[in-house]
């Protein structure tokens, strides 16, 4: 995929990048004045029409392509935009191939950053979290696990100055039917937000069967994210552990912000329990989110965990290098990149104004 190229009728208008996605590249595109998000999959690849490979080779590659299409189209069919909460899911518009390569088209959501979600008042936080849980409910009610729930896959929108912040959930390419995950080598997910059972599954330590990976795995990630939206930081964990899942697997407690109400800390503890069966489902969460005390941050902090990662801003720089490019200068894909001075941390929460 190259900037300026036409793919599926959409003209690629930004430099493709693999930023944020290990096995795909993406860019923004445009057709009939409508702007879209184009994802170009690096796998599978179809044999070229003029391929001189053996029939067996072509057949095996096409088999992988058929499986890929089936999995994606199944999820696309199950996620209906008109269902309750469905408006908060950024769903795929099209899946197609051109040449050897598969592409997926989704709506482009303009985003900018919310630097300090913890500074929102409790009403705003409540709406923010509620819309996120409602989005997830739509997946969980039909038995679908998001599979890669993390801050980067939640876009925050604010339609007008006086409106509340709401969320849109994106990227369902790692989704799977609850209890039926891909094999351990292929499963997606992010080590920072992955659930303890996900981590053990990936490690193939023999303690986790595939049916252990259910919608409860998303709840673990949601617990970490809720802590972030409420306090501005992810929960901490002891030195010597690489992730929350890592610590929880070792039965070490996560460090939660002391400013949170006790009800909130108990809720997040439950959401991040080691046992998937102990975590509340989305319906229970929606009920708990009715309690306004959940969103209150008291003044004194017993502990302030580190903000998520230490993301250094990569300001757009002129460059010849771009993916599958013809030497044109890449442009930062977001409409506005967060700009911050050295030492400050970038929020992964993006807002559409």
């Amino acid at each position, binding site marked *: 995929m190259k900037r300026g190229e036409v793919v599926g009728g959409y003209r690629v208008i930004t430099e493709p990048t*693999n*930023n*944020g*996605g*290990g*096995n795909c*590249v993406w860019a923004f595109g445009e057709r009939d004045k409508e702007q879209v998000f184009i994802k170009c999959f*690096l*796998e*599978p*690849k179809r*044999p*070229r029409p003029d*391929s*001189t*490979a*053996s029939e067996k*080779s072509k057949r*095996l*590659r096409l*088999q*992988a392509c058929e499986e890929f299409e089936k999995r994606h189209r199944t999820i696309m069919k199950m996620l209906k935009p008109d269902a309750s909460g469905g408006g908060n899911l950024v769903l795929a518009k099209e899946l197609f191939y051109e*040449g*050897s390569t598969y592409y997926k088209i989704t709506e482009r959501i303009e985003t900018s950053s919310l630097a300090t979600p913890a500074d929102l008042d409790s009403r705003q936080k409540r709406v923010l979290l509620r819309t996120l849980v409602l989005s997830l409910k739509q997946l969980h009610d039909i038995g679908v696990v998001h599979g890669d729930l993390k801050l980067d896959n939640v876009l925050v929108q604010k339609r007008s100055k006086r409106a509340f912040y709401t969320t849109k959930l994106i990227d369902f390419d790692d989704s799977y039917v609850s209890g039926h995950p891909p094999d351990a*080598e*292929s499963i997606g997910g*992010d*080590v*920072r937000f992955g659930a303890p059972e996900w*981590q053990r599954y*990936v*490690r*193939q330590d023999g303690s986790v069967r595939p049916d252990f990976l259910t919608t409860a795995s998303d709840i673990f990630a949601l617990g970490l994210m809720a802590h972030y939206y409420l306090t501005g930081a992810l929960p901490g964990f002891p*030195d*010597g*552990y*690489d*992730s929350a*899942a*890592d*610590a929880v*697997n*070792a039965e070490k407690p996560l460090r939660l912000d002391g400013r949170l109400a006790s009800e909130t800390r108990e809720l997040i503890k439950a959401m991040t329990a080691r046992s998937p069966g102990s975590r509340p489902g989305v319906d229970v969460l929606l009920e708990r989110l009715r309690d306004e005390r959940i969103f209150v941050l008291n003044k004194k902090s017993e502990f302030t965990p580190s903000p*998520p*990662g230490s*993301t*250094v801003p*990569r300001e757009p*720089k*002129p*460059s*010849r*290098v*771009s*993916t*599958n*490019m*013809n*030497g044109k200068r*890449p442009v930062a894909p977001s409409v506005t990149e967060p700009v911050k001075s050295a030492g400050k941390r970038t929020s992964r929460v993006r807002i559409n104004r």
Partner: protein
Amino acid sequence: MENALVRKQHGLAYAVDIVFCIDVTYSMEPVLENVKKSALTFRDRLESVMREDGKVISQLRIKVVAFRDFADNADDALEQSGFLNLPEQASEFAHFVQKLRPNGGGDIPESGLEALAVAIDADWESGLDRRRHVIVVFTDAPAHPLGTPDAKAANTYPKGMPESLDELLEKWGYTHSQSATMENSAKRLVLFAPDCAPWMGIAEEWNRTMHFPSNAGDGLEEFEMTEIINTIANSLT
């Protein structure tokens, strides 16, 4: 701060193997100097980018395959290191890279596909939890087809070379492949190569492959290597 490359007792252990296939013919001099400089800071820069994403590399190994043209001069057509652990073998890695000299090459196409084949056959890590096997090709030229008689006649031509690009694709592999050398979920190929055959075809048809364009004689700007490092780091997720 604890050295992030020290193997952790807990968590997912990432083993990252990277093979640099570097065209060291004369026209690559501007690129080679920057590759040399970047190679020496590569570990730190990669670690830094990975840390931003909360990922820790438990083991990093780098191998270099430097290539020219078997049909032009068999004696200097291919030089390769073994896999070198970083940081423990950083000085050996630095020494190998520093002694590379841009010269020779003869005609325009080079032996890039042979170098890629050698890289595919490298002794990749097979343990730990999450493995990433990355091949990065730096060249400003097209490649001779595999199986060219002039190249095969060279007394230094590696044994067991594929005879065609189709055979090389089978070694690279794909999902359900029964003959692949590379581990499908672990592998990544990053091409810094011209928009011409065979590189365009490889970028189009091979899975888990990304392509950056290169132009003969142009230097590799510092920020472009940053993007390449970022691309490599992003591909490790």
